């Protein structure tokens, strides 16, 4: 091959690469604008009055104008919904991580008959769409007298979160070396002491992944509160939002600031911990 030929070939390759990367870069930029624009418009509109929103939907607002937020704070049950969401999500997460770690530790660390059957039992819960069992769940909550009680939500979320948690944690716990454990056992430490003081500190990374995978769907859930909770003072944020959006249908400034406030906690957490969020939320789908 002649030198000129080589140069020509390389140049075409380089141009080809530039052209292709340019196209891909344009696709990415266009997509990012499309992803962020609705959120930016939402936040901007939250600081505008309704006439301002109608006149200039894209204009940059005066960020000192917080009348909409003040209205939400003083006139609506928003703060109550927010606290309810924190309580329900927090209680569910504590139960999920405690119970999930217990089961995973037993399955992953000890050999006993039925261990693989029990793991299968948990995994069966992974793929079943529990929404379709809402009628029996409704009857069950009624029989337990916890309809219109946040315990109904906490119990369902805990049960739903356990399969993925047991799955993630068992896989992780199995990979831990057994030397430390054996040494402690030689020294006469009890099984409970070994689990608590030696093994649990090691499983924290898996707990973070399992925690994030569960916390987002629980925080965002709307379906179960819709069926289980009627009392306005017990509603969680997504459900409370529907009450609130119904009351202020014509006051768009308040509507947008309600949406902004509801989105704020999880969006801020996501921006701070984006790597963990992405790893956690796709962990069920990425082997």
């Amino acid at each position, binding site marked *: 091959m002649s030198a000129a030929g080589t140069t020509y070939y390389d140049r075409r390759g380089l141009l080809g690469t530039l052209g292709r*990367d340019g196209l891909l870069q344009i*696709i*990415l930029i266009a*997509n990012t604008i499309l992803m962020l624009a*609705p959120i930016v418009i939402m936040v901007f509109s939250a600081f505008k009055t309704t006439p301002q929103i109608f006149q200039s939907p894209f204009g940059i607002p005066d960020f000192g104008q917080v009348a909409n937020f003040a209205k939400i704070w003083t006139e609506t049950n928003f703060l109550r919904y927010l606290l309810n969401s924190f309580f329900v999500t927090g209680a569910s997460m504590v139960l999920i991580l405690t119970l999930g770690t217990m089961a995973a530790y037993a399955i992953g660390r000890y050999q006993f008959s039925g261990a693989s059957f029990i793991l299968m039992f948990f995994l069966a819960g992974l793929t079943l769409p529990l929404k379709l069992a809402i009628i029996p769940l409704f009857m069950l909550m009624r029989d337990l007298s916890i309809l219109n009680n946040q315990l109904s939500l906490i119990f369902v979320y805990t*049960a739903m979160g356990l399969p993925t948690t047991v799955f993630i944690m068992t896989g992780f716990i199995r990979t831990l070396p057994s030397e430390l454990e054996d040494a402690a056992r030689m020294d006469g430490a009890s099984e409970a002491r070994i689990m608590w003081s030696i093994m649990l500190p090691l499983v924290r990374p898996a707990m973070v992944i399992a925690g994030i995978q569960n916390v987002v769907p629980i925080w965002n859930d709307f379906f179960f509160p819709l069926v289980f909770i009627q009392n306005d003072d017990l509603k969680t944020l*997504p459900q409370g939002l529907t009450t609130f959006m119904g009351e202020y249908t014509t006051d768009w400034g308040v509507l947008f600031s309600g949406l902004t406030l509801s989105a704020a906690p*999880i969006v801020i957490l996501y921006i701070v911990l*984006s790597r963990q969020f992405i790893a956690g*939320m796709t962990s069920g789908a990425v082997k």
Partner: protein
Amino acid sequence: MPHLRMTGRGLWITALIVPPLAFVAVFIVYPIFSAFAYAFFDWQGLRRGEFVGFDNFFTVLFVEPYRSWTINAFSHNIVVFFALMVLQNGLGFILAYALWRELPGARFHRIAVFLPVVLSTIIVAYLFKLFLHPLFGVVNVSLKGIGLGWLAQPWLGQSDTALWSLIAAQSWHMVGFPTLVFLAGMQRIPGEILDAVRMETESEWVKISKVVWPLVAPSATIVFTLLFVGAFNWFELPYIMAGLDGSPFGSTDVLGLYFYRTAFGNVSSGQQDFGLGSALAVLIFVFIAVIAGIITVRLRAREIQL
């Protein structure tokens, strides 16, 4: 002594395993089995009546008006599934491929594409409902602003655009999920294989179709299956954007809304029927399980072990 120790350990394992097992048994397994049982009874409100065999199944499948409602909702779920397959998973694959090249700003783009995924569906649904408002929504205002005013229309208010508006909102909400699952799949392709491909061909198309696509097959299996289950469980977004009746005129009715309406009643017809609702739930459940099983097995077969 060893015997005693075994007993102690047996108790310890039992104590660890029973409470979590009980939660799953009581709140997942028992309700799902009950759903099957409920479908074979006649229900008066919350009270279970007589055993009626397959009557409830027969009613929702073959007796009018249920028959038409079932077919209408089911056909919309099929449209939603195939549309999202292209808009959400197809676009997700392209975006993943673009992100994989690690061009400048890739990290920022990756965070941006996943941002809507963490939002509650309720927030997304209300946001798009406001954006699609016929008079004041940003979509129509923008169309008028750039001289395309003739395209402005009541997106959610007419039968031929309503379902597609919901599909667009759903794609915006979830496109980041398949994107990052595909991206993780691409990042696992060994560098030696990519180097070998570079020696063989210049064509980007050959590289994608013959190398990248087959090697991300495990990711494809998972996002296709999850999309299928999600599309036939679709509820929250249409509930907020179109209402429980799938307005206008049932043009956005899907199985999730239809099932909920049948089981718990709605404002216009306060009647609730747990028997018919359970029959619908069982049919949807069996359909999802069978098809998802087939999808998984068929797609697994084309996965390549490296």
